[in-house]
């Protein structure tokens, strides 16, 4: 009997200590946590060339990667203080919600149900995209309207999967989805002949075509069947952190508009242009409003560059991905990229 009593008491003590410990993820503390930790935890893809892809030496590159680096530059003053976590489309939101990453930059489509229903905040769009189809040249098909009785490889847990069904339903065409957790697996399955069609956002098609055995054997069909504004996401319970990430992206766009680049940012410090002065934190209180140092925007441009520089280096026409600016051109040059005033 004595022994049992002691055991029960031990269990009780254990439970009591449990009650007074709460696991509640610290709301409104992401910035403090990042500073304390000394690095930004950033969720990226498992490898989409041009967006987030690790090379053989494990070095990450891409426009989503640049965004993460810009956040680190803004808050820690060093763009290299980022820890990248590759995530599948299926897991990405849960990992963000659980607090394992601070920001998710993983070509994620901004939708109402994700923004509202998942208690997340989309802080902007860093790539305007749309869903398309890739087929083998040998299939002799030149339009998505001609796809019928086809097997389509798709990544699961994506808006792509939902648009796919909408498109075939609306056009009264028959198809079979073959859904994979990783985009690499979906591409490999398509490449091996398991599917006749591979579908994802058009940027992803261009990027993943470079992964097929013979990229010249595949064509991307002209139709765009959906709107896919891709952007970074943060948890919905941290206003300050949402603002920091939102304005990091805006500063990169604004810098391109004002012609501030990695190369000329130092010389422009002595400019008389008030807009550039505000952008670089030489005038006004942009840093203070975000609880950051005044150098935050300068660090972004100096260490990472403006949006256009990042685009050209990662997905532009001169890269293997080879995407023209299109919608992702500045609003002043015929695109829809537009930053609210940095002031």
């Amino acid at each position, binding site marked *: *009997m004595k022994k*049992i009593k002691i*055991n*029960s008491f031990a*269990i*009780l003590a254990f*439970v009591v200590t*449990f009650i007074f410990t*709460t*696991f*509640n*993820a610290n*709301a409104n503390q992401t910035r403090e946590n990042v500073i304390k930790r000394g690095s930004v935890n950033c969720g990226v893809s498992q490898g989409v060339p041009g967006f987030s892809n690790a090379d053989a030496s494990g070095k990450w590159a891409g426009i989503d990667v640049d965004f993460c680096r810009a956040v680190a530059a803004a808050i820690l003053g060093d763009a290299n203080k980022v820890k990248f976590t590759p995530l599948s*489309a*299926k*897991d*990405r*939101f*849960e990992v963000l*919600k659980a607090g394992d990453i601070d920001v998710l930059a993983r070509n994620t489509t901004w939708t109402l149900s994700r923004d509202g*229903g*998942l*208690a997340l905040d989309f802080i902007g769009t860093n790539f305007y995209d749309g869903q398309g189809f890739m*087929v*083998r040249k*040998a*299939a*002799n*098909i030149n339009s998505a309207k*001609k796809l*019928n*009785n*086809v*097997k389509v490889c798709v990544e*699961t*847990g994506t808006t792509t*999967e*939902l648009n*796919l*069904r*909408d498109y075939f*339903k609306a056009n009264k065409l028959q*198809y*079979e*989805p*073959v*859904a*994979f*957790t990783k985009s690499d*697996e979906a591409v*490999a*399955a398509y490449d*091996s*002949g*398991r*599917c*006749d069609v591979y579908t994802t956002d058009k940027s992803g098609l261009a990027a993943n075509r470079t992964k097929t055995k013979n990229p010249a054997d595949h064509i991307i069909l002209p139709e765009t069947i959906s709107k896919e504004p891709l952007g970074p996401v943060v*948890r*919905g*319970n941290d206003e300050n952190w949402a603002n920091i990430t939102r304005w990091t992206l805006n500063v990169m766009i604004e810098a391109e508009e004002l012609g501030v680049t990695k190369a000329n940012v130092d010389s422009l410090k002595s400019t008389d242009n008030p807009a550039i002065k505000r952008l670089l934190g030489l005038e006004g209180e942009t840093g203070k409003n975000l609880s950051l140092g005044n150098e935050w925007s300068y660090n972004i441009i100096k260490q990472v560059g403006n949006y256009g520089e990042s685009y050209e280096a990662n997905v532009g026409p001169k890269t293997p991905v080879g995407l023209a600016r299109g919608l992702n051109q500045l609003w002043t040059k015929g695109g829809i990229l537009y930053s609210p005033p940095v002031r």
Partner: protein
Amino acid sequence: MFLSSGFKTSLKKNLQLSNLIPQLLLIFIFIFIIYFFANNAQINMKARNMTSGFDFLGTNSGFDIQFSLVDYDGSSSYGRAYLVGLLNTLLVAFFGIFFATILGFIIGVSRLSTNWIINKLSLVYVELFRNLPLILQIFFWYFTVLRSLPSTEKSLIIFNFLIINLQGFYIPKFIFTNSHYIFYGIVFSLLTIILIKYYANKIFYEHAKVVPVFRISLFLIVLFPLVFSLIGGVTINIEYPKLIKNFGIFNYLGGIKLIPEFLALVFSLSLYTSAFIAENVRAGILAINKGQKEAAKSLGLNNSQSLNLIIIPQALRVIIPPTTNQYLNLTKNSSLAAAIGYPDLTGAFAGTALSQTGKAIEIIFIVMMTYLTISLLISLVLNWYNKKIALVER
């Protein structure tokens, strides 16, 4: 007995009471821990503005699933998607268990063969399949074997019956009209067999004559459904898979289609598990004392009688408990389906539906409860069977 009953009950009560207090305390603590976690989850969800509940099960899923035993499309509900996933899991588990058992028994018996080649080959089989990680075996079948099959337009066609290509295996579909008559026939033959079994036992005990019940049953189970089909006018239509060409894309339509993801899973699960079952079978047979066989012989039983009446019933007692574990493992291992895109409970529901709704806690709870229920049901059935064949002690 009468006299001491009062003393006994009071002692019993005391014992029960002193046993009850720590047990009640333990239950209380257990409930409290559950409540604490549930409450903590609720608080955390509220802090993140997340809604909870199972209402989403009634809303449209919006995604299609490539392989389903029931009618399903994107306009069906998430609840329906759950059913599709559940049935796909059960289908893989059923075929996996079926083939693993047959293979396991054959290999297990072969392990004891006096033929050197058969003996060593089955040894290699067991050591190979049980020592390689299951996920690698799934990948081997899926990525290496099934991916190296010819493309659709160059399909392997075997006897105009089986069509094999990279996108799946196709067989003709038999479509019965008035199929309920076949069902009546099966029911009728089963009833007859039960009756025959009863009289066979009677004859055995009264006249010491053996009636070959098994052979008669086999004959009846074919005969009655056939006769009933003729009476009911059952016709069979065979629907062959047809090659369809749409521009440069070829596709087989019609017939029954087995997708590569399903095949890879059934192959790997049954081969992997059969290696373990083979060892159980070997252990079961080796556990039977040599004297049992000799005793059977001295009673005048022939070889098959001694195997059927003496050896196997005793060996089964040793084989079944560990084999139950293997069946449970197989069912749970089928959740590796998610790795190759087979839409089972884990892939389609805990995967796709979860990421489309974000209802992680609810969906994981449902899926865990479902696997638990399936596993408990399998244990229940096999425990019942084990009890039925257990040694009756007198």
